[in-house]
């Protein structure tokens, strides 16, 4: 005869037995991960020496307040603009084709050296002299390079721009046309369309190169 009952006595584990069991489990765990633990403890030691552990402890303890402070401070300062500029610069660097730009930089360097060597004299600079210079193959080569750069300047690169807003893109959409026609489908497969035309990238580098002097 078993009468309905709701009375349940929870099992009271002997604290000592429980403690023993946990110690045993811990022991097994430690033995299993002996090597990793050694490495971690070594790192932890160094962190302790440099007060890093204390910092982290305090930081985590107050993390909500700290994050709020940082975020609010960031939001009220010029920092977002700095981060934005950094990101932009970083993206631009990614577009530079160093292989192509290297000979150009060497040429410019040579040009700069020559300019530095050039001594202003009272000697008259006449058309004849300039025309004579056109015979010089180095001058002809230099003009050709400059012409290519000029050509690059004229190429549409709107598609790759990161800064110009969507408004302009929609309102002057015909400017996108030529490039998209040929590239749209193909480019869709690329993760992000950051490709700037090489010529434009090179131009962006010129001031940087000049500054090196």
């Amino acid at each position: 005869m078993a009468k309905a009952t709701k009375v349940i006595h929870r099992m009271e584990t002997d604290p000592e037995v429980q403690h023993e069991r946990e110690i045993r489990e811990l022991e097994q765990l430690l033995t299993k991960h002996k090597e990793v633990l050694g490495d971690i403890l070594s790192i932890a030691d160094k962190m302790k020496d440099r007060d890093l552990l204390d910092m982290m402890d305090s930081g985590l303890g107050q993390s909500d307040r700290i994050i709020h402070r940082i975020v609010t401070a960031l939001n009220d300062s010029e920092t977002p603009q700095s981060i934005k500029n950094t990101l932009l610069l970083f993206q631009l660097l990614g577009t530079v084709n160093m292989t192509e730009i290297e000979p150009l930089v060497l040429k410019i360097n040579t040009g700069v050296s020559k300019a530095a060597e050039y001594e202003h004299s009272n000697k008259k600079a006449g058309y004849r002299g300039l025309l004579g210079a056109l015979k010089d193959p180095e001058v002809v080569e230099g003009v050709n390079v400059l012409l290519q750069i000029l050509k690059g300047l004229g190429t549409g690169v709107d598609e790759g721009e990161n800064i110009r807003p969507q408004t302009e893109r929609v309102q002057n959409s015909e400017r996108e046309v030529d490039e998209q026609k040929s590239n749209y489908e193909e480019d869709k497969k690329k993760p992000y369309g950051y490709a700037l035309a090489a010529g434009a990238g090179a131009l962006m580098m010129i001031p940087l190169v000049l500054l090196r002097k």
Partner: protein
Amino acid sequence: MNDHLEITLNGTKQSVQNDVMLLSHLKENGTEPPHLCYHESLGALETCDACIVKVNGEYVRSCSTTINEGDVVETVGDDIHEAQLIAMDRILGNHELYCTVCDFNNGNCEIHNTVKEMRISHQDTPHTGKDHEVQRNAFYRYDPDQCILCGRCVEACQDLQVNETLLIDWTLERPRVIWDNDTTIDESSCVNCGHCSTVCPCNAMMEVGMEGEAGFLTGMAEETFRPMVDITKDIETGYGSLMAVSDVEATMREERIKKTKTVCTYCGVGCSFDVWTKDREILKIEPQEEAPANGISTCVKGKFGWDFVNSEERLTKPLIREGDEFREAEWEEALYLIEKKFKENRREKGPDSLAFISSSKCTNEESYLMQKLARGVIGTNNIDNCSRYCQSPATMGLWRTVGYGGDSGGIGDIAQADLVISVGSNTAESHPVLATRVKRAQKLHGQKVIVADLRENELASRADLFVRPAPGSDLVWLSAVTKYIIDQGWDDKAFLRDHVNDVDEYMASLEKYTLEYASDITGMTKEELIEIATSIHEARTTSILWAMGITQHGGGSDASTAISNLLLVTGNYMKPGAGAYPLRGHNNVQGASDFGSMPDRFPGYQFVTDDDVRARFEENWSAEIPTEPGLNNHEMVDAIHEGNLDVLYLKGEDMGIVDSNINYVQSAFEKLKFFVVQDIFFSKTCQYADVVLPASPSLEKDGTFVNTERRFQRLYKVMDPLGQSRPDWEIIQEIANRMGAGWDYSHPGEIMDEAASLTPLFAGVSYDRLEGYDSLQWPVAEDGTDTPLLFEKEFPLPGGKAQLWPVEWTKPLEFEDQYDLHVNNGRILEHFHEGNMTYKSDAITGKTPEVFLEVSPQLAGERKLEDGTKVRLTSPYGSVKVSCIVTDRVFGKQLYLPMNTAGEGAINYLTSSHSDKDTDTPAYKEVSVKMEVLEPKGKSPLPKTNHRYGNPQPQIGVNVEEKWARPDYIFPGDIVKARRGDK
């Protein structure tokens, strides 16, 4: 008509299937334009405009464009891109991209992915709020400022779930989604089915379980969130970098959030979906289009009712009775006690003094092992399951007439039927997702719906014809309709000739079922009867759905037989969209019987009395199996009272509250010598046990269920068992081995292999064939061919023919005059049965905290009842105390007492031991009571925040025409055209 059309796509000629929309073709073709409102399960909504392409020089939305012969289609071009950009720009004006700190950033945000795909770097229209606060309740929330007004949620609510709560108010200056007449979620008619949050392409409509939990940076304090978003926006140099960072973060989330496919453990529809978990925490349920039974649909229980898994009330240690108390014990001690008692009793009184009850909530493999333990290890056929309480009569009716006790087709067949007749089934509450298919087919595709019920349930209120036959009289009107059809010459003579036996004998038996007689007995009018007959005659296909309103009567098997007879006479078998659909109530009530938890049948409905079959099992199990059928549940209770049954092992079944006449059942439990109960909670039944074993629910184990469509589906283990609880199959194996069985199953897949090898009905079922969302509908041949349409060429009866089976009406129980009120009873949408699982959800309990009694306005007037009046109902078998609500869902002297309590309002204190004469299924629906008012005034048991007090606003779809008619709307294609024209 030609199947294919010739079109030119981007300059290339190609052949296109005739009936597909342009967007679908483009998707298949790899030239998919961007799109945000289109959803495979919802179709074209035409709200986002992002999928614009050009057809014959005109800009069109590809989602809603049909293809015509010779069309010239262009998907690439600067102008097309420009139009798409305009559309996307408008979308981004409504949605702020703060992906990294967004809980929806899990790789599946469609806005994020589209922006990335289109390489959009900035937007023209700045994002602005909609000047309305976030709407939320305990289930989900809506952030209008993130809503792109795609209308998917509205479409899903209006036309898929067909709850008709959500709208977009296009008349507002800043349109947004509204509930009913622009009220709060909780005060609306919303049933929290979760469709809206499932289909939302972004974080606008989102499960609250995800909030602050999904991302690494999303749990930050509220006051930090806004500045963080502002910084993100300030520093972004175009969306590219934002996307990159958030993609990395989304990938990191994959390490932490586990997505596991499971099958719902509530009703018999068999919804499957992914469960998103973070350790043991359930973040959300994510339905998938490929889910065979439900697609993207869920009900509130399947979507939000999983808190029970981590409930503190879970049993986590075995309990052993000592006197009138329990104490927690170790497994070893509990199992040793079970072994000792089982052996002792078997030795002293023989194996038949033990009995076993399997569960329709457990897996097939567990049901198989339970009956194997009973038959093969203990040596008794005393094994049954809870389908005895509900579905056995339906199965009996089908065995008699068509040979298989299962639904004739799938849920898709019900959806495509010309006519659906629902008899004695509260489908919209008991099988909510299945009901959505009927509601949708009726609303959008002109399906005719006839409902026969005592109560104006949701489907009844939507029906084309709603009839209210007297309680327990369905056999009469069904037979009268059948006779009328035959009298009119509308019977399907060719079908009867080719596929049915005993036609003449049956026809003769119908003689007394005249319209007059039927009208007298049922209270239905002759016109109603004729209309039903005519509707069946006019429909190409009729599907009849029925449930407990038919089966839980003294003549439940006969009434089920009458349904099948009607379908046979009208030729409504052997074709898609037609047939018999007894709606199975539990997730695995079909499987529990399929796998042999029955006193007279092995798995696959093979008789234990069949020597060949028995020999096959004996050989495989190396055991001797008794030749005679054992006791069913009902007989077990009697046998205990008679002193012939001493030991009961019951799992996953709260028999002490769900069996009828529970006073009688509970007193039987008290007489048991030894009672083992295995459950996840300390149920009412556990209170009578000698040993209680802690089991694991579906999320903590692998296995399979069979749903109402006869569909096998796999569930995968989501998390480890809580505490010391264990999966049922492991516990059964442990007990069997202590009894000397020597079983060695290491995974349920091995159990399935063994069961399939012994069972022709599902010989081809294996875990390999059920990977992921793959499923099989029995019968399954050895080569894996399954049978979505149950009867194709013949019936599994002699001669391959079905059989018309004459039936007589069994009059329902009669009560003395003092018991003047009839008590109808059954489920409600939001709680499952007595609520052992669903009350563990605070969200569900908040909306529906307790049981209530529905009384009609007429009765309320007569007896001075109002919402909150507490009454006592007394039947000859017991009494309950419950508070009333007054509603016109019930009529006159009929009451409705849902079963969602295990307390003093539990319906089974009123029910009797009277049962179906053929299957012993309790006649739960034959109850009359007298009523006393205990407290005239009190708090209403149903808060006003319950969806039943809502005010639905039906419309078709999202009303995009209203959007287009707004003065601020110009079709992007027209803008581009104007610009190009101006050039």
